[in-house]
C-alpha cells in the first residue's frame, strides 16, 4: 500500500465534496482525506498502487491545484 501526499488549494468542505465521487469510483484508492486545517490543504491518499499522475490529473480537471509532495 502507498501513501500519497499532495499540496492543494482545496479550501472548504464543498471543495472536498466535489472530489468525493471521483475518488470513490476508484478501486485503487483505499482511503483518502483532506487536512483543511493545515496551511498546505494536504490531500492524503492510501492506494494499492502509485497513482500520482492520475490523481493530479483528476484534481486539476476538477479545477483545483494539486502537486505531489515527495518524501
Amino acid at each position, binding site marked *: *500500500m*502507498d*501513501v500519497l*501526499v499532495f*499540496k492543494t488549494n482545496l479550501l472548504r468542505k464543498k471543495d472536498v465534496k466535489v472530489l468525493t465521487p471521483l475518488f470513490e469510483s476508484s478501486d485503487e484508492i483505499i482511503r483518502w*482525506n*483532506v*487536512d483543511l*486545517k*493545515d*496551511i*498546505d490543504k*494536504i490531500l*492524503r491518499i492510501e492506494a494499492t498502487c502509485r497513482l500520482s499522475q492520475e490523481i493530479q490529473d483528476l484534481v486539476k480537471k476538477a479545477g483545483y491545484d494539486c502537486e505531489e*509532495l*515527495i*518524501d
Partner: protein
Amino acid sequence: MRARDEHKEAIVKEKALEMLVIQGFDGFSMQKLAKAASVSPATLYIYYKDKDDLIVRLGIDEGRKMTDATFFKFDPSMSFDQGMRVQWKNRSSYWLQNPISARYVEQIKHSPYREKVVETMSAEFKEVMGQFVRNAVINKELVQVSIETYWTIAFAPLYNLLRFHQEGKSMGNRDFTFNEEVMNETLELVLKALKP
C-alpha cells in the same frame, strides 16, 4: 509503503509537542513541524492522517505516560497516608521531569480535543483512585466528602505549587522553586484536613 523510522518518529513527536505547547493549536502547521523536525511533509502524513489526528494521538501517548507515572509503585490498598505520599511524589516528579508533556496534557484538557483524549485516561484513574478513596473511607482514614471536594483538597494544592514553580514566581512576584520541603509541609496540612 516504506518502513517507519522510529528514531525519526521520536524526533517528530518531540518537536510537535514543543511547537504545540509554545505556539498553540492554531499556530501549528504540519509544514512548520516538517521543517523543525527535518522531515518532508509527505513523511508526516505517512505517520498521521491529518493535523487533528496528530494532536489527538500525541495527547493519548502523553496521557498514557502521565497515567503510568502517577501509578508508579502505587497500590490502591495502601494506607491513606502512604498512598497520598506516593501520589504526590509521582505527580510532582512527572511534572518536573516532563514539563512540556505535562503542559500539553493540560492544554488538551482545555480544548475541543478533550473528549477524544480524556476518555482513554479516565477509566484507569477512576478505577484505581476510586478504590483507594473507598478503602480510606471504610478504614476511617478519610472524611466522607464529594469526589470534587476530595480532589480539590488532595491534589489542587500540589498543582498550585507546581504552577508557581513553572512560572518561577509565587504571589506578589516572589521568586519560587519547588522542593521537597515545601511539598511535605503542604502535604502534611492536606492530610490533616482530610482526616475524619
